[in-house]
């Protein structure tokens, strides 16, 4: 079938082609991404081009899909539809330029390793398979620990650190990845004031070095103070852009003003259909 004989019938695929392509300048460009957890859509049709050299907050109510957005970008959960590109490249090619701070609760902190061991994990990719961690990599890890004010705790077992200190260890691990784009999942959740200050100092330092940081954030009060850009999320992108323009009462009302019942029902229906039950 050639394009000239294309009948005057509406084709299901036609709109997808018409959409704008990925931006090659953007550190992360999300295109028509739908993500499902256990086949139930949690994010609907997300399009987003992150500006470079900015601190970006992802904000939204519980269950809005904030962490899901990050994980789907990193390929940690499969995307039901859509594509993500980093500087115009696929994740596989851009991987060495991307750093990640998972949620603190996602690991067992009773694990028998020291803070330094955890930070060294950020260097594993550079070290390569089956090779021991060399002195230079340990030094880099120590440097990262120092940047988050944790140099004195390098030899501590991680369960003996406070929640905030554990978070800073995670941050240090991401720093040793020497990335240009960072994804951080709730780094400010349940941390003490000293840690909050340490994290925000590091974030600003990263920005002044030309990096981009995308942070899942739960504290609305601090958004204008800490971030340049904001992405308001509730199953789909409600609004995104510079904080001064987007972070308005009206948009927040749209984001937090209750779940869209029909969309939630649709998500259930999609899950049932996909499971065949």
């Amino acid at each position: 079938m050639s394009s000239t004989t294309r009948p005057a019938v509406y084709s299901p695929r036609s709109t997808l082609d018409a959409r704008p392509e990925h931006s090659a300048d953007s550190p992360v460009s999300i295109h028509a991404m739908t993500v499902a957890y256990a086949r139930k859509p949690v994010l609907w049709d997300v399009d987003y081009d992150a500006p470079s050299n900015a601190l970006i907050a992802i904000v939204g109510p519980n269950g809005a899909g904030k962490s899901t957005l990050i994980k789907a970008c990193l390929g940690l959960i499969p995307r039901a539809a859509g594509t993500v590109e980093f500087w115009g490249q696929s994740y596989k090619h851009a991987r060495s330029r991307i750093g990640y701070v998972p949620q603190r609760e996602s690991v067992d902190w009773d694990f028998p390793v020291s803070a330094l061991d955890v930070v060294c994990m950020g260097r594993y990719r550079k070290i390569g398979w089956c090779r021991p961690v060399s002195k230079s990599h340990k030094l880099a890890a120590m440097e990262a620990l120092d940047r988050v004010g944790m140099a004195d705790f390098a030899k501590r077992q991680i369960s003996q650190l406070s929640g905030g200190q554990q978070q800073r260890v995670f941050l240090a691990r991401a720093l040793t990845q020497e990335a240009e784009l960072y994804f951080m999942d709730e780094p400010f959740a349940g941390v003490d004031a000293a840690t909050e200050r340490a994290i925000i100092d590091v974030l600003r330092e990263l920005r002044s070095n030309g990096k981009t940081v995308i942070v899942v954030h739960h504290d609305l009060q601090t958004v204008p103070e800490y971030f340049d850009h904001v992405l308001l999320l509730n199953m789909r992108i409600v609004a995104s852009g510079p904080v001064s323009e987007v972070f308005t009462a009206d948009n927040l009302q749209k984001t937090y003003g209750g779940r869209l019942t029909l969309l939630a029902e649709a998500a259930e229906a999609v899950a049932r259909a996909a499971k065949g039950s």
Partner: protein
Amino acid sequence: MNDLPINFEEILETLALQGGFNTNAVILGTTLLGIAAGVIGSFALLRKRSLTADALSHATLPGIAGAFLIATSMGYSGRSMPLLMLGAAITGILGVACIHLILHHSRLKEDAAIGIVLSVFFGIGIVLLSLVQTSSSGSGAGLNHYIYGQTAAMTRSDAAIMGTIGIVASIIALVMLKEFMVVCFNETFARSTGLPVWLIDSIMLGLVVLITVSGLQAVGLILIVAMIIIPPAAARFWTDRLWKLVLISALIGGLSGYAGASISALFPRKPAGAVIVLVAGSIFAISMLFAPTRGVLADTIRRLRLKLLIARDHVLESLYEIESDIEGARHPNASIMLIKLIAMRGWITTSNNTLALTEAGRIQGQRIHRNHKLWEQYLVSYADIAPTHVDWSVDQVEHVLTDELIAELEEALRVRGITIENGDPA
């Protein structure tokens, strides 16, 4: 008692590997297997796969019996050790695959999936075993030794295979320590850095399979899993570092293997598998009770000491407050034992039935009083962020504040324009 060996020298000879050549080979092989099981078990424990290993080892039975049946039906000898090990490995892996299938294609949870695979595969194995016994008169009689293990029936080459596999498996695990560590600790992070988690998991599983099938003859398939589970669980009490955990676990595993095989060689009717597990179990019990790092006894002593410390601090604080006429001061409520203990430190005097602080005691009391006020003030002025610390009750925190924390508190309060002099906000 005819259970005992003839003389003491024979015991020493066996333990020092001076016994018969065959015996030595078996003891050495079992020791190496124990070391390998300890190393690989560490990662199985940290990846929380202990019971998957149990299902795997039970699932080897149909493989053993099946391999025997197929081999004999094709006219080969079914007793070839590598052949039986191959069969065991195949159904063992099949069992683990079934666990994954059940988890992916039904609503059943992991515990049920493991239990189903374990019992059904073993049941099939029993059926095949009874077929072996009816179909091949006599030649398959030794197969059920793989259930409980029997070192006595092992040849030198069997032991050599076992030992070699042990060494190879340990080396693989040690070389990949870094990769195993990151996958066990933080799987999502490992995946975000591009590490193929499924491949590393498969290698880990492969190593567990190697250990299981090579230990079948010596330890038996029911108890081999204990060699994978118990040494690392015991080692965990002694250390907070992964490489030490692996080392200690290997040591415990090796020791259990050595002791089990030796005792079994020395005494009649002492099955090696059971003895190995009992030795490992005893080491586990000792570790759990007496290990200085995470042992129950050490933990209890630490907690009692803290309790005593807090009680002592309360006494000193109360006395300080009374002697300084501070409002709201209460009389200390303490046992005579405690008072005597504090008096021994030289912080209080008990003359004329009244308690009084000495100069040193006064300094202590003042310090505690000040810490208390510091913390209280911090909670009040940082009410917005302090809720993350609400689980630290005021009465407890003041006693555990380290010098660095106190400095931090002072700094935090200074930022908000509050200083504490002698315990009172100024």
